């Protein structure tokens, strides 16, 4: 019998439909049905200026907006042959890691709530708000930031920001201990999660699965380490890894990643304290929204010919490897953009980690995948 779990179902965070074929309580086939949130971001991009696409990227994944900005900006800067100043790169790394914390805490809150535990949800939302407050203090937004720009970032952080951020990081490190005590110490949690949704390393690689799901299968693959972008080669951190490849392993990986993110954020704050400088590249053409183009130079800047090219960038987004492919044929709009969403791929492998389990196992398994429909459908 085919059962539709979605598009409106407490298990689906967002609008999608998990069609499950069941035999009694046993799952014999699954068919994820997506597209309910398809907004055609790739099509809309064809008619937009390079900097206007950043707005779309925030809406691409609504819990990791700034990480998606970084994905797109990396490819756009490659395509336009522009390099961002050093300080902007450090700010981007700080934003990425703060976003990873916010995204993982959001995942924790939603995932544990799926299992029927309500109080961790409230704790999670409380702690995530502190990070959103930090974001608000320098981007003005809490969910959609529009902070990155081709050639840098929009503005610097305000004075006193780094101290405030350090306080939040200290607070979070204490909370992670509580999170673990609430979950790993709970017999009910362990019995609902251990040994479920297993996807071994070989299958993960064949199916293109990335991010915490891949690392929970014992593969220590992390773009931040393997192919450092921005300034990730200048910060110290360890790649979180677990071996069991099940729901609990994914929980452990994400928890460890949060601790590592705090470690990275602290290093970026130390650097930002001691290295003031510009955050946006000079000599950007007017159509890239350069705010301080010298008077009288607009004509020159407009005519300045940017080389054509295709840019590619890959970023370790909270859910996995996100990639952008931006084709620039000259002119103010990209000819074609293509985005690779890690959740899209992780979800496409659903058959391989769901068949053989029971209906009541669906919420923990799907919760551990950390699905964000915004970036699946784009």
């Amino acid at each position, binding site marked *: 019998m085919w059962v*539709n779990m979605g598009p409106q179902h407490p298990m689906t965070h967002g609008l999608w439909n998990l069609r499950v074929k069941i035999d009694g309580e046993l799952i014999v086939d699954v068919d994820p049905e997506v*597209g309910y949130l398809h907004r055609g971001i790739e099509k809309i991009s064809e008619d937009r200026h390079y900097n206007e696409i950043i707005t779309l990227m925030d809406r691409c994944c609504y819990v990791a907006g700034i990480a998606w900005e970084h994905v797109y900006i990396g490819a756009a800067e490659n395509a336009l042959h522009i390099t961002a100043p050093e300080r902007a790169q450090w700010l981007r790394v700080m934003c990425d890691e703060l976003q990873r914390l916010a995204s993982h805490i959001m995942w924790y809150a939603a995932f544990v709530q799926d299992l029927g535990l309500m109080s961790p949800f409230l704790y999670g939302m409380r702690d995530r708000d502190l990070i959103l407050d930090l974001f608000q203090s320098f981007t003005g937004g809490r969910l959609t930031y529009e902070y990155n720009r081709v050639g840098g970032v929009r503005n610097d952080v305000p004075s006193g920001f780094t101290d405030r951020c350090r306080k939040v990081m200290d607070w979070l490190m204490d909370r992670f201990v509580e999170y673990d005590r609430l979950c790993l110490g709970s017999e009910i949690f362990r019995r609902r999660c251990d040994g479920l949704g297993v996807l071994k390393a070989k299958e993960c690689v064949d199916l*293109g699965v990335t991010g915490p799901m891949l690392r929970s299968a014992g593969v220590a693959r992390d773009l931040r380490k393997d192919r450092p972008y921005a300034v990730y080669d200048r910060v110290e951190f360890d790649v979180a890894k677990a071996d069991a490849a099940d729901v609990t392993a994914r929980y452990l990986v994400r928890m460890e990643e949060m601790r590592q993110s705090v470690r990275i954020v602290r290093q970026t704050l130390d650097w930002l304290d001691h290295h003031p400088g510009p955050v946006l590249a000079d000599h950007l053409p007017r159509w890239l929204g350069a705010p301080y183009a010298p008077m009288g130079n607009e004509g020159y800047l407009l005519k300045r010919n940017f080389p054509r*090219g295709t840019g590619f960038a890959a970023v370790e987004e909270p859910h996995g490897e996100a*990639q952008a492919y931006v084709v620039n044929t000259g002119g103010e709009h990209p000819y*074609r953009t293509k985005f690779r969403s890690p959740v*899209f791929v992780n979800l*496409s492998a659903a058959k391989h980690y769901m068949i053989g389990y029971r209906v009541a196992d669906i919420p923990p398994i799907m919760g551990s995948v950390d699905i964000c429909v915004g970036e699946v459908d784009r």
Partner: protein
Amino acid sequence: MATDDLATQLAPRAGANILAVEPFQGLTARVRFRPEGALDVFRAVHDDLGYDHLSMVGAIDWVDHREVFYIVWSDVTKQYLGLSADLTGDAPHIESATPVWPSANWHEREAWELVGVAFDHHPDMRHLLMPDDYAFHPLLRSFKLHEPEELEVKSRSV
């Protein structure tokens, strides 16, 4: 340098189908190949070069022809490699990459429904993001964003 090495390594199994190995912004290199020999190229890249992880498949409408591109990753070299083929003709089609990289499944479904490139021998070719009876390929350049097509979309069958 790197591009020469790649060309030599690919030569034994797919040499005849390789058109060029060129440097590419953000990638190790991009391999342009003939669509007729797609499966040989995929096998050579997967087995001989060790690029066992397919990251994405996309298609571009260049108006006079369409291009299909693949981004693959190797855990050994820690590098991305691009593959690309130009498809000409009224009904552009290429062999599906699913026998070599199973992860190509959804990517190819998306590339077909958005850009109208057919993937031969795909195991499960259905609409993915658009409704089941959607008759257009929205990422074609001829599909204008500001002139909405007349269409009536039936609800999905469940």
